């Protein structure tokens, strides 16, 4: 009986995690088709600053930030903040703009071919294109 409950709990935990799939998106107008996890991580920690031949415009979503960085970079938001503080105060990069909610990220990304952000998979629509899934 006990094992059964544990199994059920595990299963529901897993399905909850699967339901919250985060996807990395660019504008539907972007020429970028797919990105590897490493390429996304390099962009969001400031190691590379170009996307599709232009200067990348990064956007963070407050609600998904912690989850996104742990999946994409293996680092927590505080570590990322410290990394960007280095780049910001050396004039070598600017941290992502932070907005709230899927709709705000889509708005930022849709109109700019050099923009990149992340949203819930369920919120994907025709204005954006998925370049990487982070289950």
């Amino acid at each position, binding site marked *: 009986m006990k094992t059964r409950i544990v199994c059920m709990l595990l299963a529901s935990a897993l399905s909850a995690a699967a339901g919250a799939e985060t996807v990395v998106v660019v504008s539907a107008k972007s020429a970028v088709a797919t990105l590897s996890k490493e390429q996304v991580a*390099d962009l969001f920690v400031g190691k590379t600053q170009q996307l599709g031949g232009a*200067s990348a415009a990064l956007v963070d979503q407050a609600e998904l930030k912690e989850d996104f960085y742990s999946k994409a970079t293996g680092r927590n938001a505080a570590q990322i903040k410290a990394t960007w503080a280095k780049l910001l*105060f050396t004039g070598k990069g600017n941290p992502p703009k932070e907005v709230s909610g899927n709709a705000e990220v889509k708005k930022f990304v849709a109109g*700019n071919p050099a923009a990149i952000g992340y949203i819930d998979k369920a919120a994907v629509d025709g204005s954006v294109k998925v370049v990487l899934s982070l289950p």
Partner: protein
Amino acid sequence: MKPVLPLLALGLGLAGAAQADEPIFSVSGYGTLAWTQMSGDNAQYRVGTAEPNGAGHAGSGETDSKLGVQIIARPTDKFSATLHLLSKKNVNNNFNPRVEWAYGKYDLTPEVSLRAGRLALPGFVLSDYLNVGYSMTPVRGPVEVYAQLPISHFNGVDALWRTQAGPLALTVQPFAGRSNIHARFSDPQATRAEGDATVYGMNLVGQWDDWSLRIGRIDAKVSLNAGPVDSLITTLRMMGENGAASRLEYQDKHSSFTGLGVGYDNGKLLAQGEYTIRKAGGFLADTTGWYVMAGWRFGNVTPYVMTARQRVTSDTQYGGIANPMLSAYVNGLLASGNTSQKSWSLGARWDVAKNIAVKAQYDRIRPDHGSAAGLLISSDSKPLSSRHVATVAMDFVF
């Protein structure tokens, strides 16, 4: 000049559209509030070469505290102007803010930027953000390495060329310019040294996966004056001791600084080390300095250990001066330049809130290799034994 993401270089040609709806001015800042305290009497601990005094037995809130503000203006996609003001304890024993950087940056291509104005002198791994406590794990860059250079910025030009060398994301940075020097010796009177230097050199930073690598070299023509030393040099010349006078004198004297740094950070384990060589050329000693630091992240808490060492490699004796009193003065001066020191440190960084980190660090310092006081300001007649330094700091960015 290969594009960083070759597969994606399909020429969207809309560089800068990214900033179209961004404000022209942005302001950011950082600071550290810290309390630093050292065991024992008759000595003071300082973290650079400018401060006329440091933290002693009674402790001090001035030693590690600082505040910086940076304003960036981006009038066009390709041009930006940066003003960076810094308030930390200075050579005049106050916190009057100084212009640490003030430069214009022009992006010639996405890979190449040119900068002109007052720029950070890239002497170390941490040079660019040495004052931004929040961006690093320990409380400060270890003094055995970071107190070797009395210059943090220069007025001149540099270039930043970002390229790909095999698996390395490489930044190549040649630079040249001039800088003033304001320093204090570590004698009890904190004798002032003033001068200037023409500097030029090259800085290479490579990143690959979790690894980072830095190689840098600075060459300089240094002129440096300090009252008591100048008088001694004049006397030596009068007495016909031109060899000794030339040995001590700083008039357009060639000096160099070479540094090698390696860092590793996989998200949990972080490690960093630097090895540096200073060829001073005049009354200051030649030194080598190194440190190794390692830490482990447990969620928001990162404990770390560090060991560091500075060693004087030039002769701290000068033989062959006929007059015994002059000989004693010269050798006294050279001996006081023996700043050899080693230290062990233990500490922890705790990311308490968004934008705020709290740190506690303990350092055990010991003068080494025949040095009387290491890098400490000492008024003790006897050589110092080991000392303990405790620091608590709160770092923030905004």
